[in-house]
């Protein structure tokens, strides 16, 4: 009775160890793939273009969100500084969503994301006359993939020179 119980427990512990090791390995691989994401917001630079030296053109959002991350705010502050220096330049903020939502809702979500970037630029002294907003919803993904990383690259607001 007792030896068999000990045997059983040892077996269970061994099995648990194996399972846990498997998990750990998997996790490592996952972080490798998703090193470009924090939570589900894209933090990589693959798709980013530059309006000027050190002025990235886009910010990224979490699923269903339009809240600006710390990194996004930094990007927008550099855009604002650049726009203040180049006062003749107007911009269009193009808001986008990933493919995992209904088309019409995504159009509205893209508009909301672009506006959240616009509001931030305005608090840093850029006149609303110089900024227009255009939502593409899920119509213009940058990454054609159907995976979380691709979707994170597509949830974005891109600042484009209008003149």
């Amino acid at each position: 009775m007792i030896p068999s119980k000990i045997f059983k427990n040892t077996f269970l512990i061994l099995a648990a160890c194996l399972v846990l090791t498997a998990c750990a390995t998997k996790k490592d691989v996952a972080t490798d793939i998703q090193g470009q994401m924090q939570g589900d917001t894209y933090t990589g630079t693959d798709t980013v273009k530059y309006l000027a030296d050190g002025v990235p053109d886009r910010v990224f959002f979490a699923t269903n969100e339009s809240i600006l991350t710390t990194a996004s705010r930094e990007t927008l502050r550099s855009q604002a500084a650049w726009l203040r220096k180049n006062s003749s330049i107007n911009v269009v903020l193009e808001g986008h969503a990933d493919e995992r939502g209904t088309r019409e809702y995504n159009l509205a979500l893209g508009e909301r994301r672009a506006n959240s970037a616009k509001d931030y630029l305005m608090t840093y002294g850029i006149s609303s006359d110089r900024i227009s907003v255009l939502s593409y919803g899920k119509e213009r993904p940058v990454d054609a993939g159907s995976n979380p990383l691709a979707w994170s690259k597509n949830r974005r607001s891109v600042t484009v020179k209008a003149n």
Partner: protein
Amino acid sequence: MKDMIKKFYFFLVCFLIIPIKTFALIEVDITRGNLNPLPLAVSPLSINDKSKKSFEKILNKKNIGSEISIIVENNLRTSGLFNPLSKDAFLQAPDIANLKPRFEDWNLIKAQALITGKVTYVDEKLRVEFRLWDILAGKEMMALAFTTVPENWRRVGHIISDKVYERLTGEKGYFDTRIIYVSEEGPKTQRVKKLAIMDQDGANNKFLTLGNELVLTPRFNPTSQMVTYLSYFKNLPRVYLLDIETGTQEVVGDFPGMTFAPRFSPNGKKIIMSFAKDGKSDIYTMDLENRIVERITNHPSIDTSPTYSPDGKYISFNSDRSGYQQIYVMQSDGSDVKRISFGNGIYGTPVWSPRGDLIAFTKLHKGKFYIGVMRADGSGERLLTENYYQEAPSWSPNGRVLIFYRETKTDAKGKGFSAKLWSIDLTGYNERLVETPTDASDPSWSSLLGN
């Protein structure tokens, strides 16, 4: 204009010759999934040599009688309610069957109903008579005749299908209808989209725009051949109105920003849509006669995808005012807003059934998309189909079939993307791919054309 006169003439000369009442034994129950479609025989419409030659000259079809019967056969088969039997088994010639079928012959091949008919060339017109027979009772159930211009031959096939469907199921048909949709081509990151229209069975496909600008979400006016849709003309996303007959287009309303998600009111006199400004989307209507714009919702959330109830008294829409996208119903003036979707997941794209009792929707739950229906008070939720991605259901005019679009998952390299139209019965049975020449999305079903 010529087209309109033609159409008008068509309706004028469409008439009934022998209205007959019989006590039918056959009845098709369409309220449940139909796993045993009714076996019936569609005999080729008989035609004499002289008429055959005349039509061959005009329409370039060898035997217009059998062409029309093929249309009827395909429609009835696609409905999932009928099983048209192979013509190879038919024992009786079309012309004799149309006069007086030998019921025992048709009974032998297990047909329960029989469609016969005759096509003639009369004064440069196409005259069609057809009869529906109840084989078991040995009786004629219906007999009708129409005269029309020969070019309308496909519509004749659809009208016959509608009459047969109505006689056997007790519900209006949906075959003499068209579908407007968005044709898609090119890579996923740079899709070229055009408005396209086709008959319900995929015939007569026609592109309505050239693809120079992005177009989305076309919807039929339930009372006319007008369409409302979203166009990015000059990179300004706006709701437009398009007359399919004349090709004229105009912007709907004068909004300082993006308008989208348009739909007609049931009487066709208003357009209901969303207007996005400062990160908020609200619902507005515009009266097409006096151009008066009314604001219906006023909330900091996203309110979109509005749809009227068929009596025009209520509006359903989706909103993220609760934090996530859910479905709401309100009075048509915007008062009395009530959330109706409470299941797991997020809910969008409500579309009110033409029958008024149900709302079709898209649901996203645990990474899967569903098309489903619920009652207008939110009860009785029923999911009809599950897939990687699908949305935007549109009802057949009789409220029995839904058409929607489905997208495929791409691989690690972003390859393998496609968008296709699919249809499914309200029962959840009879799911079918709707063939289109290109990839397709955003389908909208027209009303019956005769209406």
